[in-house]
């Protein structure tokens, strides 16, 4: 029983982290329709910026996180304006090459500036201990991740379906020409969507820093995982990403606890099975590259 509770908590925590990081990638791939294999870079930059703010600027945990997210969002905006927007109409393979190039440069930059060790984000005393939930004690950090993840989900739901911004985004995505003819600037929306995705990834990087450690090769290490969430969730399907992240983390976490000898064969076999029956993702999505 204890094991099940542990699996559940770890699984939801990891799943939330994956969701927050991967949702931006789902939007990029499915709605903006550009391939970005360097997405993990935004997650690790979030972690690095937060570490820097805490260590060098002596910020507290929360202010550091906020600063880091702002910086990461800016980085995303810059990359979109300077590089990605130039290849929107090019072939997917060109986009693959560009994003791999960006990923390499990003890794090299992180390694040169921050060194090749692992950076830890020291938690404030409030968040470092366990929290008594009655039936068991849960590390506060886990609860933080789950709460933040939940807040992100809620915020996205509200923004996407309730606000004018969300409606306009959907219009731009579905019918770019028509949207532009009624005065919606699609370039602005692509830039904003891309930047927001980057910022969220940064948040995810900070939240997940304990399980997905902040080090230069982070973007390559977790690339397959992020892509898996997007593929299984369906491109551009935000709620699908949530479901997929939970599913993947569930399979991986259970596998780690219950069948460690199989390694990650189970996760990959599950992915293979899901995608062969539902190539548009478990929950459906856009057809894309």
């Amino acid at each position, binding site marked *: 029983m204890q094991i099940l509770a542990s699996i559940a908590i770890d699984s939801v925590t990891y799943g939330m982290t994956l969701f927050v990081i991967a949702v931006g990638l789902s939007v990029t791939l499915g709605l903006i329709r550009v391939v970005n294999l360097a997405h993990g870079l935004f997650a690790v930059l979030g972690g690095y910026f937060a570490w820097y703010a805490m260590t060098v600027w002596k910020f507290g945990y929360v202010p550091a996180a906020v600063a880091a997210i702002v910086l990461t969002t800016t980085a995303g905006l810059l990359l979109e304006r300077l590089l990605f927007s130039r290849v929107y109409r090019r072939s997917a393979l060109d986009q693959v090459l560009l994003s791999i190039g960006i990923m390499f440069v990003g890794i090299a930059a992180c390694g040169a500036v921050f060194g090749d060790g692992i950076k830890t984000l020291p938690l404030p005393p409030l968040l470092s201990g366990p929290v008594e939930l009655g039936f068991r004690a849960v590390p506060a950090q886990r609860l933080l991740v789950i709460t933040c993840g939940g807040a992100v989900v809620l915020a996205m739901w509200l923004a996407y379906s309730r606000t004018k911004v969300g409606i306009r985004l959907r219009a731009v995505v579905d019918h770019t020409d028509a949207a532009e003819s009624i005065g919606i600037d699609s370039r602005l929306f692509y830039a904003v969507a891309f930047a927001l995705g980057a910022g969220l990834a940064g948040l995810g990087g900070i939240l997940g820093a304990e399980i997905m450690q902040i080090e230069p090769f982070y973007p390559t290490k977790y690339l397959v995982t992020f892509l*898996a969430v997007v593929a299984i969730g369906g491109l551009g399907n935000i709620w699908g990403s949530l479901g997929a992240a939970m599913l993947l983390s569930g399979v991986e976490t259970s596998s780690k606890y219950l069948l460690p000898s199989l390694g990650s064969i189970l996760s*990959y076999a599950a992915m293979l099975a899901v995608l062969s029956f539902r190539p548009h993702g478990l929950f459906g999505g856009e057809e894309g590259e």
Partner: protein
Amino acid sequence: MTQVHSKRLAPLELAVPLAAAALWVIAPGQLGLLTQIATTAVVVLGLDVVVGYAGIVTLGHAAFVGVGGYAAGLLALHVFAEPISGLLFGAVAGAALAFLTGFVVLRGRGLSLIMMTVAVAQIVLEIANKSRKWTGGDDGLSGFEVSPLFGIFPFDFTGKVAYVYSVAVLTICLFALRRIMRSPFGLTCVGIREDRVRMSAMGCDVSGHLRLAYALGGALAGLGGALSAQTVQVVGLHSLSFTTSAEALVMLILGGTGRLWGALVGTALFMTLHHVAAELDPFRWMFAIGGLLIAVVLVAPSGIVNGVLGKVELWRERRAGL
């Protein structure tokens, strides 16, 4: 991007052994690197068939490379060590795995297809990792020797025989592929890449054909893996890794897809740069390669070879007044 010319095929593949001979004279101390470039080029040629001609984007090609390598290594270790049989065994292993997984993998499109190729490669990697008895696991498979080529030329530490052997295999593969991709088979691959629906409407069994193209790519990957195993005399889990798949794809796109020559140019450029920059720390090398990739995408659309040939074609058409 691809063309089927109606003129007789000029023996351009002879440029490969000629260049190889020149390089031997210029850089006799680099035979090891040059051999590696040749064996990798065989793999990337196969990837061009799959990605460039048939339009199947894959990040799991390493599965076939590794399977070919382990097959050749195991054959040499347990059965007999004749090199050419090892090559064929590796090619068949790669082709078989590709053909079989093709039934599942090729049902996907776009990202789901890519992720399925990744999944297959990762599963093969994990299986190889767990089967220490056969594959040596983390330590890799070694201790097998390769018999002298044709019974006459031993694979010694100077690497000369290995070099000539690899270049010869590469040249033969290039020759064969140039013919195959100009045949109705190759033309059909291009048609499917451009428009599957139209091909279906013209009577083509698209999924059957794609499986064959995928298997051909797998055969070449297996061949390259076997060649590498024989010339380096060790096979490791790295040959099955995501990095290997990704690097092969990068080499191909860099050089240019759908031309076969792009595979050679991209492989040579990437691996040379890797070798030179690896003297520096790993981060400098990534900086250099990353910068190169970004520059190529922004400056030479569709890769180096296509960029150059595109300009040549434009010039030719203007001259012919078309």
